[in-house]
């Protein structure tokens, strides 16, 4: 029975907490929370009690992470704190003798990356990065097509990711809206996608160029489009009917984790997406070269009317395409509300929807017709990926034929693309990964 501590008890922690209270309760137990806000720990205590436990985890402040590991004999910390705190908290945990399971992205900048490398070398601790997208059945199926050699050696990848005006907008309400906290979406969100490409191609990035900007959200864009004065947050009295406003009272979980917790730290979870202070982009374009010779053209848009992604992979013997619609439109549900994250909750199509929720892989070899590859499984959160990933995290999976469990090198290889892209955006020059001085091999 391994002893776990959860570092950062925001909404990201829930998947791990539930796994350890349920399916994996026989192999692991949560012994401590490491979190500055008591209200958020109350929320998770309630989950623990709800699972039938009378004893709740001990509470520690982030500055006491070493003491927590020592006093509670913690084997592994699960790090689900904001991205910019990852490097410090995870490396301190390793140096205090714990292994680490960490939400992507590994970290938000180069200094954080170096800190991880040093701590891992110094301590020999294990670090597991949870790239749940690899586990989505469709992404695994695409990996299998490429590994099989059916389309030959990959020559180029064209990849578009769209976040809709519910899920995408949500990054502009929270701590993510400040680059200092999130590294921007090229780090926070796209590093997921860069990990997929690295994994699909079994290759490493060598050069990155990026362009982009804040072109829809933010006060300047709103003003330029003639939007009038707006409330600074979505939770207002009387309630707003603006679809861009998130009212925390509409969701009991958001109320418990954030609205009720405000009095302790002043953190607002529902800032207006057109309010000042946003320092991240909402349209991003990236060109990545890989060491074996392929190029990737990638774009991320976060104010799309629908959510999903499309990737086309060209090879020397053919081509494969994956198209995913997670949520085809954002018409309100009968109760007038909309779900925040389509990939998590599972969207239900309206009758006659022109863009139904779908996933499709087409493979076509030179001189042949295209054929559809069946995608087996794929029910549940993140295309069915979360369940298998949690099993691998808590029970281990050393011989996965698809190589889905990701180690810190995988984390570095993906986050480094986001970091390099962010840097390229700023300086207007391509960034060579070799010049960053990180050992990616």
């Amino acid at each position: 029975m391994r002893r776990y501590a959860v570092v950062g008890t925001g909404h990201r922690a829930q998947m791990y907490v539930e796994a350890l209270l349920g399916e994996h309760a026989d192999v692991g137990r949560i012994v401590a929370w490491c979190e500055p806000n008591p209200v958020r720990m109350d929320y998770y205590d309630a989950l623990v009690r709800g699972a039938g436990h009378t004893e709740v985890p001990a509470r520690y402040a982030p500055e006491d992470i070493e003491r927590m590991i020592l006093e509670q004999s913690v084997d592994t910390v699960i790090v689900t704190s904001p991205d910019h705190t990852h490097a410090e908290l995870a490396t301190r945990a390793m140096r205090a003798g714990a292994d680490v399971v960490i939400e992507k992205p590994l970290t938000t900048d180069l200094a954080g990356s170096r800190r991880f490398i040093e701590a891992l070398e110094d301590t020999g601790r294990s670090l597991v990065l949870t790239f749940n997208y690899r586990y989505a059945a469709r992404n695994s199926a695409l990996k299998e097509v490429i590994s099989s050699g059916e389309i030959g050696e990959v020559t180029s990848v064209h990849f578009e990711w769209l976040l809709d005006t519910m899920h995408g907008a949500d990054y502009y309400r929270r701590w993510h809206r400040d680059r200092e906290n999130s590294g921007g979406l090229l780090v926070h969100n796209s590093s997921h996608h860069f990990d997929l490409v690295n994994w699909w191609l079994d290759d490493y990035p060598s050069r990155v160029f990026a362009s982009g900007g804040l072109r829809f959200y933010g006060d300047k864009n709103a003003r330029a489009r003639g939007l009038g004065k707006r409330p600074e947050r979505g939770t207002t009295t009387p309630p707003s009917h603006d679809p861009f406003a998130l009212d925390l009272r509409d969701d009991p979980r958001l109320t418990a984790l954030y609205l009720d917790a405000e009095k302790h730290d002043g953190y607002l979870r529902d800032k207006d997406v057109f309010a000042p202070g946003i320092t991240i982009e909402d349209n991003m374009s990236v060109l990545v070269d890989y060491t074996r010779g392929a190029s990737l053209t990638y774009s991320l848009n976060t104010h799309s009317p629908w959510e999903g992604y499309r990737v086309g992979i060209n090879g020397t013997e053919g081509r494969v395409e994956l198209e995913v619609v997670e949520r085809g439109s954002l018409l309100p549900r009968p109760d007038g509300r909309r779900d925040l994250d389509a990939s998590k909750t599972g969207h239900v199509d309206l009758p006659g929807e022109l863009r139904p929720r779908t996933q499709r892989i087409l493979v076509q070899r030179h001189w042949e017709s295209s054929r559809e590859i069946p995608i087996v499984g794929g029910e549940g959160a993140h295309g069915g990926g979360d369940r298998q990933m949690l099993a691998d995290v808590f029970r281990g999976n050393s011989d996965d034929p698809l190589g889905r469990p990701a180690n810190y090198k995988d984390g570095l290889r993906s986050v480094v693309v986001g970091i390099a892209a962010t840097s390229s955006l700023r300086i207007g020059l391509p960034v060579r990964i070799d010049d960053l001085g990180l050992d990616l091999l």
Partner: protein
Amino acid sequence: MTHRRRYAIAGLGNRAEMYVEAIAGDHADVAELVAWCEPNPVRAAYYDARCAELDIGGTPLPRYEPDALERMIDSERVDVVIVTTPDFTHADVVTRAMRAGADVVVEKPLTIDLAGALAIDEARVETGRDVTVTFNYRYSPRNTALKEVVRSGEIGEVTSVHFEWVLDTRHGADYFRRWHRLKEQSGGLLVHKSSHHFDLVSWWLDDVPERVFASGGLRFYGPANAGARGLGARQGRGTGAHSATDPFALDLRDDARLRDLYLLAEDHDGYLRDLDVFTGPITIEDNLAVLVDYERGATMTYSLNAHSPWEGYTVAVNGTAGRAELTVVERTCVPPFPGQDDVLDASAVVDKGSVSRGPATDAPGAVRTRGNRLVVQKHWEEAREVPIVEGAGGHGGGDAKLLGHVFRGADDDPLGLRAGYVDGFRSLAVGIAANLSLETGAAETVAGLGLRLR
């Protein structure tokens, strides 16, 4: 009878045919063909025969060598020269024609490099002559429909464009058989092919490109790639018995037009139309990736692949009020060898090269189907399909409209379909800057080229 303008055609390859037919047909009342400028007598004879078939009087037309262009314009009192020569000769032919007193209609791309573009601009300013670049893709109803959507403001101000073009192993491969295979002759596909696409984007967005970054390489065609994949010894050209078993070999005898225009013309100039795509030298790329920033703030992510198993394109335009997506499948698959299913591509009936062959209908239950689909979705609304109204003739009626503008002018052109020299420069500038970026490894500013962009 109104005065008919006197046209000469320079360069009698397969590109000339559309213009010959237009002058013989719909525009015979305003245009007449008076001369050829072409070094190869066999190709001129082919077009003389074509004219006779089309019942154009006065054939055979006088044929002039390229170095006698000025004399032709003078002696034949040529008003307009239609330039359908290989791209690398455009600048020379266009500037000389203008200086000799003719207007010019030139096939895209305007020219292949910066020096050529600057020379054309200088001659244009000096002579006051008119240059029209024929961007026929604009006239394709699906592309016009997307222009209308963007222009209507329905999706708001454009913030980004994601654009992928795939050329299949017949059409795409064909660039690696012909003069296009050398960068100094075609500018590579970034200039020869993508400038078409860059023109569409500038036109759709009504914007000017500002900065370009590119990556790419020759990753499929060419001897080095073939060697690395273990392909054995190859025949240097496609015409031969081996074409029956090698789908990449183009046998010029299989197509009467290719036979007449090229195989039978070889004696005169030694030009081979059917070089092997896996035999060098090839100095152009077959996979290209480009990022372009536009002045008003949008960014385009673009890729071109020239060895796809199917042909078409997908373009998505994100705006501040929604998004538009155009998906086009021109050919779902390429049959390896000419056969019964292998009929002319229905969307490009004027393009008669064998390169446009492919199944015109979808097999029952096919997962990829031919067609165009334009979908528009505003924020918080459902997606809806925008109908694309096709006209009669090649490219959904687009060719007929283009030719109407070329021969009769465009008095009523609310969408700005008719492209002038500035449009030619804008699109070309992206291709040139992308080529430069490939060389330098840096992002290149378009303004830095010093071309007239507005």
